[in-house]
């Protein structure tokens, strides 16, 4: 085993899925640094003063993309289960207008309006889940119908007009963590959040070492854990200080906080609970899952319903940030969410994909979008570039899998692994069907 490969395995885990995620994170970091350099050059300032990593840009980045990332979480589960949801943008818009109306015309207080919005999402989810799970209409069709239906409903309810929302409600989309406690020159709550995150990664590392020992496998050498933790803590400290030390009155966005909480919760759910594993089982082989006692209909119903609830939440956050609900809200969101999931390594045929991968995939797109705009590239060319990135990222992955290697990083790392054969293309007589490639229609 070459030293580099060993290092990679130690730092990022030996499993292919981890290697893949490492590849995505690597790509993300590379893009961030690239735009930092480019924006700094453009402004004629030093690397440290580039626009990309400035506090206000990081905050804007999070606020502008938190709702897409929330959608990506739900979409990942839908896609892993072998479905798709095209209706999320319309569902978000429909919820947005109803919630805005509830506050403007029926004078709902904003906390009640939020619950009302989630209830609308649940009701829509029951509707779509019913057709998908219990009638057996393909999700593509059900949600294509939903896309038309709820877009029309948004414009019907709102008379194709925009409707403003009150300031209290706007907090969930445009608000920041408040200033509390002594004046430290930083936002105290953001600092606390950063400390909590650091504590969490340390705890996770210890936990991982313990699990490895319980598996009778040697945990990675201690120095590896320390190096890995040091990198992560350094990044966390940097990010925390950026978010805490921005213009007075700004800090970590509330919409970002909602997103982070959801990501952690769903990542845990999909990875560490029986319900989450059932989603993967259904997407991987629904017949086999059924014969293992998995309640197929219930799983399908759940993922579709969950998606609609998250779409409603995303819609409300967007409306809160924009200050008003309009007829064009949520247009093409489904495409952004789906792109994030596939860039993040999910398989079209279902059964493969992770929440963290989708989030990184979503961030890659977000940073690309943001960086190009900072550079003054027009939306026309941004779209062209994003389309190509999606195609290339997935094509590279498909190609690598067909070569028996894994993912983008697999090829980046290839020159370094001379002495260890990659996974052999099984030349057995058993002629197993080819494993699902990332995107195999």
């Amino acid at each position, binding site marked *: 085993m070459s030293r580099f490969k060993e290092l990679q395995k130690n730092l990022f885990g030996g*499993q292919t899925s981890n290697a893949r995620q490492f590849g995505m994170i690597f790509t993300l970091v590379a893009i961030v640094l690239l735009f930092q350099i480019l924006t700094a050059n453009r402004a004629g300032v030093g690397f440290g003063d580039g626009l990309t990593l400035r506090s206000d840009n990081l905050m804007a980045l999070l606020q502008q993309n938190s709702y897409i990332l929330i959608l990506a979480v739900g979409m990942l589960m839908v896609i892993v289960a072998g479905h798709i949801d095209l209706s999320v943008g319309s569902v978000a818009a429909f919820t947005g207008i109803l919630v805005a109306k509830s506050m403007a015309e029926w004078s709902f207080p904003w906390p009640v309006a939020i619950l009302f919005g989630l209830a609308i999402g649940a009701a829509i989810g029951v509707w779509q889940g019913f057709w998908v799970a219990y009638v057996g209409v393909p999700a593509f069709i059900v949600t294509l119908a939903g896309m038309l239906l709820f877009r029309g409903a948004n414009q019907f309810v709102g008379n194709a007009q925009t409707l403003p929302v009150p300031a209290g409600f706007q907090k969930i989309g445009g608000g920041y963590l408040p200033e509390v406690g002594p004046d430290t020159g930083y936002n105290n709550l953001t600092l606390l959040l950063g400390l909590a995150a650091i504590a969490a990664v340390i705890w996770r590392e210890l936990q991982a070492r313990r*699990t490895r020992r*319980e*598996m*009778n496998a040697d945990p990675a050498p201690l120095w590896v854990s320390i190096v890995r933790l040091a990198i992560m803590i350094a990044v966390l400290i940097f990010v925390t200080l950026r978010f805490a030390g921005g213009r007075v009155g700004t800090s970590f966005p509330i919409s970002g906080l909602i997103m982070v909480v959801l990501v952690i919760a769903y990542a845990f759910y999909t990875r*560490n*609970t*029986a319900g989450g*594993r*059932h989603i*993967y*089982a259904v997407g*991987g*082989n629904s*017949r*086999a*899952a*059924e*014969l*293992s*006692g*998995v*309640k197929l209909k219930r799983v399908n119903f759940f993922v579709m319903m969950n998606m609609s609830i998250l779409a409603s939440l995303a819609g409300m956050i967007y409306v809160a940030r924009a200050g008003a609900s309009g007829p064009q809200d949520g247009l093409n969101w489904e495409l952004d969410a789906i792109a994030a999931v596939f860039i993040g390594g999910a398989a079209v045929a279902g*059964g*493969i994909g992770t929440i963290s991968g989708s989030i990184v995939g979503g961030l890659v797109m977000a940073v690309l979008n943001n960086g190009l705009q900072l550079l003054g590239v027009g939306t026309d060319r941004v779209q062209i570039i994003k389309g190509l990135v999606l195609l290339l990222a997935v094509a590279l992955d498909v190609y690598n899998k067909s070569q*028996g290697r894994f993912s983008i990083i697999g090829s980046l790392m290839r020159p370094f692994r001379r002495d260890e*054969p*990659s*996974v*052999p*293309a*099984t*030349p*057995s*007589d*058993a*002629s*197993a*069907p080819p*494993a*699902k490639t990332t995107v195999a229609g």
Partner: protein
Amino acid sequence: MTNAPILLEMRSITKEFPGVKALSDVNLVVKAGEIHAICGENGAGKSTLMKVLSGVYPYGTYAGDIIYQGEVVRYSDIRQSERAGIVIIHQELALIPDMSITENIFLGNEPRKRGAIDWTAAQRQALDLMARVGLTEDPDTLIKDIGVGKQQLVEIAKAFAKDVKLLILDEPTAALNEADSQHLLDLLRGFRERGITSIMISHKLNEIEAISDSITILRDGKTVETLDVKGDGVDEDRIVRGMVGRELSSRFPDHTPNIGEVFFEVRNWNVRHPISAERQVCKNESFTVRRGEIVGFAGLMGAGRTELAMSVFGRSYGAFESGQIFKDGKEIKLKSVADAIHHGLAYVSEDRKAIGLNLLDDIKTSTVAAKLSKITHHGVLDEAEEYQAAESYRKELRTKAPTVHEGVSKLSGGNQQKVVLAKWMFTDPDLLILDEPTRGIDVGAKYEIYGIIQRLAEQGKGVIVISSELPELIGLCDRIYTVFEGQITGELSREQANPETLMKQMTSTKKMQIR
């Protein structure tokens, strides 16, 4: 035959995949007009060799020479080898279910007239080709509407449409019942008389012994030997010895049955077909299982054995009509697979790739998939426990894999089957229903699977074995039920069971109660 000219010679073929030498210095000599069998355990390199021959692995990706009809040939794809008359029929048939027989026969090879497909000519030629393979069907019938035996014949007709000189059949009878297999073997004999050379890959040694002129045995990617069936006096044991490299003293491990009380009983079981409700798939079937007993279900393909098993297993097949299930003297209702698992039933399906395993999973995930509750504490999966459970089964069942993190799609058939067995043993069942547990598994692994089944019985579990291989049932089971057209037609003890009696009861509705 010995003096016949050589049609094909493959000289010291070596084929490497990254990290694995699939074939190393393999030699194959096929004489014109013979039936040449290629034997070997799974992974021995049989299919790889045929893929080299047919150009699936193009010239340049392997080392060695292929000499066909006296010339060195270098195929770069299948079309070239087909043009030379070498046609492969794969185990998984390459037919389009929603197209007619004619359309399938000429798929990719359509007779044309001025650029358009000449359907009149196609129809006429199709009828002619069908006659040659003994297939009597309307050529407009859709493939999905004919049985797998006839589909196999369509594949062969398709090969004839390409003017075949060397026909290669990969496990041609694996999915066929006894009668269809017999028909196919007769057909191959007929081809031999007409001078067509065939290469047959098969696990069914009795068929190979019956039909082939010479046998080449591969083991671990190397040629072990080539046997002349008539001259060398080859029998099954001789072939097995070549394949596994040692003498298998017995096909079944030693086992002393220790049979207890009846603990599982199905009474008057009636099930209808899930789509066409007028078809009754299970007709008033009743059976019992004792603790520690291995009970066999014999029947032809389509007799309704799998349907019976799956309908009992939480109604996972068909529309339940009536019937009762008793366990330990109490009636139980199994309305879902979850109910069945809860009551200690396990069903290992006959098709492990399609419905037994999630091929995206690794060994550990597959092992625990049917009873996640066992490793869940306060709603959270314990990955260390998952690992330990999977690892202990891997050791116990001697699954060949470096670790339990290995993906199941990378395992051989026998090892996949062990993972499926582990998955169901993990649910702590009292009754295991094993549907064709050794299908597509090589001789060595079969022996191990038999051992596992016997150990399960020795632990006091009831085991039902559904199998199309009569010697397997006779060698393994304490008691055998015969099934014909959805009815149980007989019940034989180990002492009474022999192939003749079983076959008779498997093909007649006349109920024969011997005990």
